[in-house]
């Protein structure tokens, strides 16, 4: 978009400041103003071949009466850098046909227990790898390895979420197997991880029934960003006042497309449904990400 008049519709995202037609013989709207004079503040660049370019300064544009040191349109997403890394991860997953899920939840919802059981029950069918994110300790990765899957622990230190760059480094040390599953267990936090794309196929939010039914309303970003909600610790429901229906209704208010499964990592209740969800979504994802599917 032109910084003088706002003409043009596309954003400047990838374009450099060396703008378009605002040069010396300048046709803009229906008048043209040829600048034979010079005034203080104009920093015209003289380019070989005698073009005097008033648009070559940092502002990428020239307006009479304003000095060149003015406004630069940037229009860049603050998360652009993370999103670039995420795109690289995603391309790598597509190339090696690794179906990746990003598991998010508050601390203590039972993500690791769910993963341990899933690994024990699915490792005969798929090669499974896990990236564990926590602020400190390698406890979770140890638990995952004992369950039979290679895992890498990423400690974020003071960080409250995993970002795509950290995951990229994690991938270097994990030997991924083609056609496998990769689970990324994010830092327990229902806020920050919502904004950071890691390159996953889906975010899966885990909510335990010992939490409140209104969590989807309290932490809407996370439920808006997720495709599946696992309501964990279902075995405790007889002892609680948790209203499953209300919780699902709240999640659907935030995200009309979210799917919900009621599960228990402890008893195994509902996990067959989760495995079926996994397989069907992995198959659909693989179809959409194979070069032949694109060619069809």
């Amino acid at each position, binding site marked *: 978009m032109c910084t003088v008049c706002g003409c043009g519709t596309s954003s400047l995202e990838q374009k450099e400041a060396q703008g378009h037609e605002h040069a010396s013989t300048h046709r803009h709207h229906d008048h043209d103003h040829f600048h034979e004079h010079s005034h203080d503040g104009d920093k015209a660049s003289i380019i070989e071949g005698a073009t005097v370019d008033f648009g070559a300064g940092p502002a*990428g544009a020239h307006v009479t009466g304003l000095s060149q040191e003015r406004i630069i349109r940037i229009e860049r997403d603050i998360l652009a850098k*993370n999103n670039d890394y995420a795109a690289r991860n995603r391309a790598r997953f597509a190339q090696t046909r690794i179906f990746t899920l990003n598991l998010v939840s508050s601390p203590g919802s039972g993500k690791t227990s769910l993963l341990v059981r899933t690994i024990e029950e699915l490792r005969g069918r798929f090669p499974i790898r896990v990236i564990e994110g926590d602020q400190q300790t390698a406890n979770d990765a140890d638990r995952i390895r004992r369950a039979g899957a290679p895992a890498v622990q990423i400690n974020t230190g003071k960080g409250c979420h995993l970002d795509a760059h950290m995951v990229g480094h994690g991938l270097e040390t994990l030997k991924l197997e083609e056609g496998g599953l990769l689970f990324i267990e994010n830092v327990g936090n229902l806020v920050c991880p919502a904004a950071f794309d890691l390159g996953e196929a889906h975010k899966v939010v885990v909510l335990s029934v010992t939490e409140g039914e209104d969590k989807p309303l309290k932490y809407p970003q996370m439920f808006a960003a997720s495709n599946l909600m696992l309501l964990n610790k279902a075995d405790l429901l007889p002892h609680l006042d948790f209203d499953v229906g209300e919780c699902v209704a709240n999640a659907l208010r935030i995200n009309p497309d979210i799917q919900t499964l009621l599960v228990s990592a402890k008893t195994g209740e509902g996990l067959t449904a989760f495995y079926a969800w996994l397989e069907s979504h992995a198959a659909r994802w693989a179809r959409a990400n194979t070069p032949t599917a694109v060619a069809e």
Partner: protein
Amino acid sequence: MHEMALMESLVELIEDESRKRGFSRVRVVRLELGALGGVDADAMRFCFDAIVKGALVEGALLDIVVKPGEGWCLDCAEAVVIHERFDACPRCGGNHVQAAAGDELRLKELEVE
């Protein structure tokens, strides 16, 4: 939420732009925040003040423009303004409103010299 990490990315982004476009001082940093984005403008200002020491943006004014949230009401089949993700439709009062825009987090423009 993670305003400090976002501010660090912002400062990197501006330094990147300064190398590309050759400016050495920033007077105003103008951000656009979507009202549904879960990023708090006051927290952003706090982190900005904490992080700019010695950076190119030291002394710059942080101007945050909050963009209202936009939803699509499935019942009215119309775009409506919403303030929270779970807001009911301001026209029909129904709950079938899908957030359509309002989680922007963009560096709009810089005033530089």
